[in-house]
């Protein structure tokens, strides 16, 4: 597994305590898992995604990532409605390992604007990882 210094943590993204990353593009937000999270999981073999139109409250489980012998839930860092899921991951879940920041899992339209301010910056997230 990677040392913390080896992790790729882009500065233009926001992060959550549960190791998701968040990228804002206009009115919608893309959500994926961080380099740290994919590294901890090992070879990801399946990504279970919600249906388009599903709505979640901040902290809800919105899907799961599976490795050969483990399942990890992914939690939504912001309340919202799912507008797209990344269909490419259905056939190529390994993309989450290979390019964690290109491989967003869902795109949502956030419903509680203020939650955006509660996310972690790169530096705050790094601090969290360093414990």
């Amino acid at each position: 597994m990677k040392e913390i210094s080896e992790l790729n943590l882009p500065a233009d993204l926001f992060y959550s305590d549960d190791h998701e990353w968040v990228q804002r593009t206009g009115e919608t937000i893309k959500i994926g898992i961080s380099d740290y999270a994919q590294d901890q999981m090992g070879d990801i073999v399946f990504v279970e995604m919600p249906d388009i139109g599903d709505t979640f409250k901040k902290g809800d489980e919105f899907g799961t990532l599976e490795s050969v012998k483990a399942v990890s839930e992914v939690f939504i860092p912001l309340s919202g409605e799912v507008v797209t899921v990344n269909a490419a991951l259905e056939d190529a879940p390994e993309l989450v390992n290979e390019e964690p920041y290109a491989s967003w899992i869902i795109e949502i339209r956030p419903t509680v604007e203020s939650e955006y301010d509660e996310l972690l910056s790169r530096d705050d997230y790094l601090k969290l990882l360093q414990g």
Partner: protein
Amino acid sequence: MRYLPHTKEEIEEMLAVTGHGQLKELFAHIPENCRCQGEIDIPGPLSEWDLTDHFQSLAANNLASSARAVLLGAGSYSHHIPEIVRNLMSRSEFLTAYTPYQPEMAQGTLQGIFEYQTLTTRLLGMEVANGSMYDGASALAEALLMALRIARKKHTVAISSAIHPHYRKVVYTYLQAASFKIVELPVGRDGRTDCSGLQNIDDLAAVALQSPNFFGVIEDLETAALKIHAADALFITCFSEPFAYGLLRSPGASGADIVCGEGQSFGMSQSFGGPGLGMFACRKKYQRNLPGRVVGETVDLEGKRGYVLTLATREQHIRREKATSNICSNQGICALTAAAYMASLGSTGLRRVAKLNYDKAAYFKNGLIQTGAKLLFSGQTFNEFVLRFADDFKPARKRLLAKGIVAGIELSDFYKEYEGAYLFCVTETVSRTILDEVIEELRS
């Protein structure tokens, strides 16, 4: 005792290593108030010969020891089992192995189950199958639970009342704890399930039919599929007699989404109802919702083809309380037996034996009808059918039993409304002589 290999000296040597004086000291930490009081009252030990005598005398108290023919199926069928199937499946490398957790030393079991899954999908016209469930009944219950998982937000299932009554009971047991609703669909005069009321059932996740059903009647699965899918529900079909698919259109080709049933007919003895084999197959898009063990193909370090247990993340040891089922085994040797049986038959053999079942059942049915019996249902049948007799059938049935022939079973044991009707089964194992004898008995 020959299963306990320790000599007295060895026990002493081993106790010296563990630091105990006597065997009972190994249990010293078990509190006194948890212990057995006195010796357990169990007979034995019996020698191999006494044991065999004991069981021979028990067996003599079963009709099976003296019966000439049992013209009864209802979920448990008498078919010929080739000697090679018995013989190969008693090989201890298969029989005394555990679940194949270490694939490098279990390729026999794993390839065998992979072949079983494949032949099962070909038989049922489906895309994927699991490594098997306990029996037909629990397979149906698990299929309904699977459909409820796929449908996510719906809580109601409909099951045909022509499904084996015991399967339905098991479904109630499995679904009772959660707040799922079960609706039973009525049967028409043709003995087929009446699907006309589906549109009136709210919140419907799945509909289950059995074909041939408990009355032996072949359901029109294709038409049912249209109605069920129109109601936005998943279509589950089940079966108790897989031989039927040697002749009939497969459930997959008829539009089913999940197919399950009992595989006992494929090489397992009736053995008072168990062990049997819960066969289970579905469309590929639902494969990650499958319950139970699944074997998949992969390669080893050197690129050679091999097999492993896969999709384990669905299962209880990883997903714990969120698993797709609590099952943590399959019917291993029974699945392998069914595969060896299907392989022994081949396409040609399966069709021939299925046709022979049909021919013999048709011969018997027509013979009985000529004595004045009437079909209870107008629907077409495979190797089971229901008849009602002009006179009381009981005395004739009793006379036949005295001659070692079990002539059907009373349908009112399962359906009170069908008083006086009897369910019969004829397979390839019953000779024409027996069938003629029964027909003759009724004529007189």
